[in-house]
């Protein structure tokens, strides 16, 4: 075991995959000499050479479309978006080509797109988004949102191994803030298996990404009041661990679905709707959702603070739920 930050765990996973599998290569803007905007691939070009760590032109369509083609020829591309926000420029290639190709023609597209996402540092409307819900709605794409260094490493290995297009959302606000013990050797974390980040029986919070930590801080607050809240880290949204969520609902009877993306049509709606449909009888209170309001991500600190769900907001919501 070694202590690693979340971002180190991502680098580590990528490096190990590239060492063990010649077919894995990286492409993206400034990933070579510069090591990527966040330095995830710093030093990789020295180790793996310029044809496995490829600086592309500023061309998200060529990056994702190109990754698709290379995957069809047997390689395992890991594409980096400089910020998750820019994936909007490759939306068409993901939903039109990569997502539908296997269903149509049974040629798998094993690509990973790494997406530095999330807010919390005044990145403004175009450097802070959490676009995972948009993709989770598209059949054929897998969606991964690690919250811890351990999962960041294991889920990236799984993503690269997976024979399907995988969107790997790495939350920028966790990059250097979150540390943890991470096994030094390679390992995988399976998709579709939620992690109990904190145990509790009075209510369950279903969440992912940076909000796992926000929820946990809120749960610690509540614990002082004698309310024990379970924090369920979904880890992957496609597939999502419905069974474990429903079990949490059955046990706690109260549930808060929490995410950093905007509320309307966010993936929280899917989870809440599923609970309402399949665990109706188990509920002691309405399924509550807490998410960002339906606006672009604002730049100015007081606005951004009002936008991203804060520990206090989660505490308030959980109190309300507990009191129902």
């Amino acid at each position, binding site marked *: 075991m070694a202590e690693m930050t979340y971002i180190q765990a991502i680098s580590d996973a990528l490096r190990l995959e590239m060492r063990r599998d010649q077919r894995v290569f990286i492409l993206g803007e400034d990933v070579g000499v510069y090591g990527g905007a966040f330095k995830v691939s710093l030093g990789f070009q020295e180790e793996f050479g310029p044809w496995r760590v490829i600086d592309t032109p500023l*061309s998200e369509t060529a990056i994702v479309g190109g990754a698709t083609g*290379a995957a*069809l020829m047997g390689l395992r591309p890991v594409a980096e978006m400089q910020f998750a926000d820019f994936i909007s420029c490759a939306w068409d290639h993901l939903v039109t080509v990569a997502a539908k190709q*296997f269903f*149509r023609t049974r040629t798998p597209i094993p690509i990973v797109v790494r997406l530095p996402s999330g807010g919390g540092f005044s990145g403004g409307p175009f450097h802070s988004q959490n676009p995972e819900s948009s993709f989770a709605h598209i059949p054929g794409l897998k969606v991964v949102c690690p919250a811890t260094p351990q999962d960041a490493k294991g889920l990236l290995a799984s993503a690269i191994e997976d024979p399907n297009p995988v969107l790997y959302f790495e939350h920028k606000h966790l990059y250097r803030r979150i540390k943890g013990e991470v096994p030094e050797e390679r390992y995988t974390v399976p998709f579709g298996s939620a992690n109990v980040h904190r145990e509790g029986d009075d209510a369950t919070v279903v969440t992912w990404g940076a909000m796992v930590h926000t929820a946990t801080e809120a749960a610690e607050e509540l614990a002082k009041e004698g309310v024990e809240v379970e924090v369920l880290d979904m880890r992957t949204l496609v597939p999502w661990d419905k069974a474990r969520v429903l079990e949490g609902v059955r046990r706690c009877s109260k549930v808060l679905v929490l995410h950093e993306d905007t509320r309307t049509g966010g993936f929280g709606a899917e989870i809440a709707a599923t609970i309402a449909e399949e665990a109706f009888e188990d509920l002691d209170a309405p399924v509550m959702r807490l998410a960002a309001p339906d606006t672009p991500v604002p730049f100015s600190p007081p606005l951004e603070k009002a936008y991203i769900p804060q520990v206090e907001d989660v505490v308030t919501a959980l109190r309300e739920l507990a009191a129902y």
Partner: protein
Amino acid sequence: MAVREAEPVGSLQEVKEAGLDREDLLGIYRSMLITRGIEERGHILYKQGKIPGSFYTGRGNEAAAVGVGTAMGPNDVGTPLHRDMGVHVTRGVEPWRVFAQYMGREGGPTRGRDGNVHMAVAELGLHTMVSHLPAMLPVASGMALAFKIRGDRRVAVGWFGEGAAARGDAHEAMNFAGVRQLPMVFVCDNNQWAYSTPTYLSYPVEHIADRAAAYGFEGVVVDGTDVLAVYREAKRAIEKAREGGGPTLVECLTLRMEGHAVHDDAFYVPKEMFEQWAAYDPIERYRTWLQNHAELSDDEENEITATVKRLLNDALDRADASPLPDPATLEGGVFASQEDLDTPHHK
């Protein structure tokens, strides 16, 4: 770098130099006949109500498609489009599978998941188009990138129409291929219409091939009704790419001899244009060439025609015997599993 306008092919000697023997020449003829035959029969099937959805043909484009398909090496790959039935045929797709595809049967390459010419057989080095044009160009450039990374002596061919050339995908793919000198050939099926849109509303230059200069590679315009000229130019471009010479843009000039799809009577195309280009029917043109330069006899021709006819009749029967897909299988196939990766084409 000015665009080169390719000369027509005149003599047998020329073609021999380009690597085709008489057997190959007859094979090309056969492929062109099968191509047209598939689409003509498809048309009938459509009118009989046996083909759901819409129906597209590449009438007028047979030479361009077969010419490029013939120039590709056995391990080369490509992403042909809705006018390029000739590529599938040349690479060896069995016609019955095309009919099965048209009719939405299990035997079609997409097993009824997708329709009309949205199909390809990966084992033959071809990869299925999507509707969104020209999305397969960036994909093809990624295939070429894979070859470059691995040092494979293989080439990727990406097709696009002169209309779809307006989309950003064409630009990103060509720029990337140019920057990285990828082993790739861009083939523009310029049939002068994008649905109802004439060329001057699609692009403001004389030739689509003029664009190649903006990406640092060569552009060539070839008469797309001259199968041997297309073959020669495609071969040159493919072998250049194979030898590390980077991409080429080959523009095949034709006329789309029918409407955009079966529902479209092409009222917006001037009659004279059709008349003028009818004189350059690719198949007739090539037949005449074979008669004049390769001693194609009537007997030989009749035999080829008869074989093709039999092939297509059998294909129709076989396709019709293929079952419709079972609705119970609908939900299973969205995600691949590991075993799906272990296929030879995925190498």
